[in-house]
């Protein structure tokens, strides 16, 4: 079933699935009042992100593809809050702008939505995340959506959320065991909608995760470790997001150690290769050009 779906070209691009499920989540949270975001705020995020995408594409002379901008907008609408319109508009523009401005080796460095969240929370007090504000129902919906994506695209890049969540859960449970805390404490921490959304819809972005399977595993595990340390040893409420930004900075190093062909949206699914390749060699599928348009 998953294979028959993902073999269709339209379904092969996970962004379609992301747009559909993130919109559904946002709509659900909106109706139930779980998310405090106004229609105007959501609109400006989308407008700012799409406008930036169009301008950026024009500047590097490619055809604008708004699907990524839309995914980014939806992530921001789900995770970032402000009591004015401009901080969210700025976040949308920063997110997509970072794809064009901050590049290395022909690809953008940061996950766009993550970059905007980190920039806005570190640099201004005007926007903030609300990690605790997801009820169990929304959390469950997010988990379901994430799991659905994993099943549909299991052979592509979605080993990342599982490794990330696995390592993070192991750290939390290990901490509880060491402290002698009841397991209800790590479970409470794991029942967090922002965490699930982060795992399935942000850190798993194929464009900003290493292409080599081993490098990707280290990337996901490292992000979990960094998030844990920032949250529990440095008491940063937004440690999760800072951790991903940190790992994105380290990503070129991981890619250098474990090179692999660059992922393109709509790539056919293939099983991950778990071998370190010290020399650059092509994996099972056909070679890909190194330079990818910013999408």
């Amino acid at each position, binding site marked *: 079933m998953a294979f028959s779906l993902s073999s269709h070209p339209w379904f092969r691009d996970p962004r379609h699935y992301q747009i559909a499920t993130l919109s559904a989540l946002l709509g659900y949270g909106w109706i139930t009042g779980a998310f405090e975001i106004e229609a105007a705020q959501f609109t400006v995020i989308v407008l700012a992100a799409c406008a930036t995408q169009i301008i950026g594409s024009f500047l590097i002379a490619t055809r604008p593809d708004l699907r990524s901008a839309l995914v980014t907008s939806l992530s921001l609408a789900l995770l970032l809050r*402000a009591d004015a319109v401009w901080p969210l508009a700025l976040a949308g523009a920063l997110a997509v702008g970072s794809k064009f401005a901050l590049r290395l080796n022909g690809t953008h460095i940061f996950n766009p939505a993550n970059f905007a969240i980190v920039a806005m929370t570190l640099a201004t007090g005007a926007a903030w995340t609300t990690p605790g504000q997801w009820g169990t129902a929304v959390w469950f919906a997010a988990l379901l959506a994430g799991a659905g994506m994993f099943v549909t695209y299991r052979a592509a890049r979605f080993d990342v959320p599982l490794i990330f969540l696995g390592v993070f859960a192991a750290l939390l449970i290990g901490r509880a065991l060491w402290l*002698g805390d009841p397991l209800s404490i790590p479970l409470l921490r794991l029942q967090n909608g922002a965490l699930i959304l982060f795992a399935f819809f942000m850190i798993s972005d194929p464009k900003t995760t290493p292409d080599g399977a081993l490098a990707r595993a280290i990337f996901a595990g490292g992000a979990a470790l960094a998030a844990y340390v920032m949250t529990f040893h440095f008491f940063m409420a937004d440690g999760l997001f800072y951790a991903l930004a940190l790992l994105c900075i380290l990503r070129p190093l991981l890619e250098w150690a474990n090179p692999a062909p660059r992922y393109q949206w709509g790539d056919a699914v293939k099983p991950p290769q778990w071998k370190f390749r010290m020399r650059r060699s092509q994996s099972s599928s056909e070679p890909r050009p190194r330079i990818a348009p910013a999408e």
Partner: protein
Amino acid sequence: MKRSLKKALIGVAAGVSAIALTGGAVAFCGFYVAKADTKLFNKASKVAIMRDGERTVITMANDYQGELKEFAMVIPVPVVLEEGQIHVTENAILDHLDAYTAPRLVEYFDEDPCQRFEYRELQSAAPVAEDEVIVTAARKRDSLGVTVEAEYTVGEYDIQILSAEESGGLATWLKQNGYRLPDSAESTLGSYIKQGTKFFVAKVNLETQSETGLKYLRPLQIAFESPKFMLPIRLGTVNADGKQELFVFALTRSGRIETTNYRTVKLPTGMDIPVYVKNEFGSFYKDMFHEQVKKENERAVFLEYAWDMNWCDPCAADPLTQAELRELGVYWVGGDSASQPQRPQRTIQPQAQDVFVTRLHVSYDAEHFPEDLMFKETGDRSNYQGRYVLRHPYQGDSQCEAAKTYRAGLPKRFEQEAQTLANLTGWEIDDIRAKMNAGEQFFETPQKDPWWKRLWGGDEKEG
């Protein structure tokens, strides 16, 4: 007095095992401890937190109604506190903060419908206070792998700052020193110790207490710097008898605070409710709160107030003066010239004072709140208040057409209010209707008209 106390202590020390240390209830941050036979009643804990960067001032009020002797409290703190970092303040300031932020009733009187509708705001009110139980203990001296980092007497409290290597030692030390400790507290203590937490024991010094001439205990304050923005509630849930109520008043610069590991939910606000609630606002508020707690599966923290400290609308009480704010740790206001109290106006424009107040209310137990409350400060400065509206119907006998329409509409409006009230509080709708009928909001219980009454245009206009 002093002598008799000493005697009592010695007696207790000699016969710790003989004392009937029954029960073992606790309070928010720590244990309230008192003699076994003393029936204590902790209505609700109130904690004010000033937070700016890592600077933190916590003011803890014990709504402690038992006998003052043998009272003691054990509180986890992130750092070893020096004498100057501990302070005792007046209850009145926290009471003022409580009143200022309390959910409020607003009363309007309908004007003569033949004139114009114009609502006049008349009055506001403020309730609050809940239940909860307490404990037991005695006292004795000894030491056991536990370092007493410092000992001070601050106001009516004898303070000891403890650090311990492991929970067993601390538990034994506390027990040997006569503090009643539920067995299950040991693992919680162990968790805190491994996280580098120090402990702070406050005991009432009856001698200085009697000098204050007060019948109650004044709030204790601690000032420290720590990246941890949290309130320890776990010790308070150990072996607690039922749920505990906690009010948190946060004073910050940038905006509202919220919990990061639990949902922070706004209490429903702005509803029209029957006017008789004016006399039952306390029970209304309490039942409404508990109803909302149930709706959120008992896992939410409730936002009751979020406002810029400069003003209020309507005001349940005047905003706090600069001197009061400073006392609560808001170090950036007032300063040298703080002595002249700024005259707060009612319903008036903000002046730059830069203090944002958040009031959170949580009803917690170990099952639903296994972890301490972790907070974060947001940039949200939008105002929120718990506000409930009473609309008195017009009582005159004007006869114009508008008055007829107005009167015809009243039963429907009353019914609406009754439904709202029943929804909010879980009260029986029939009781509500009966009470409304007995007051000034009488309405015929809505009976369904026979279907044919509406068939040819006959309607209830004349009702």
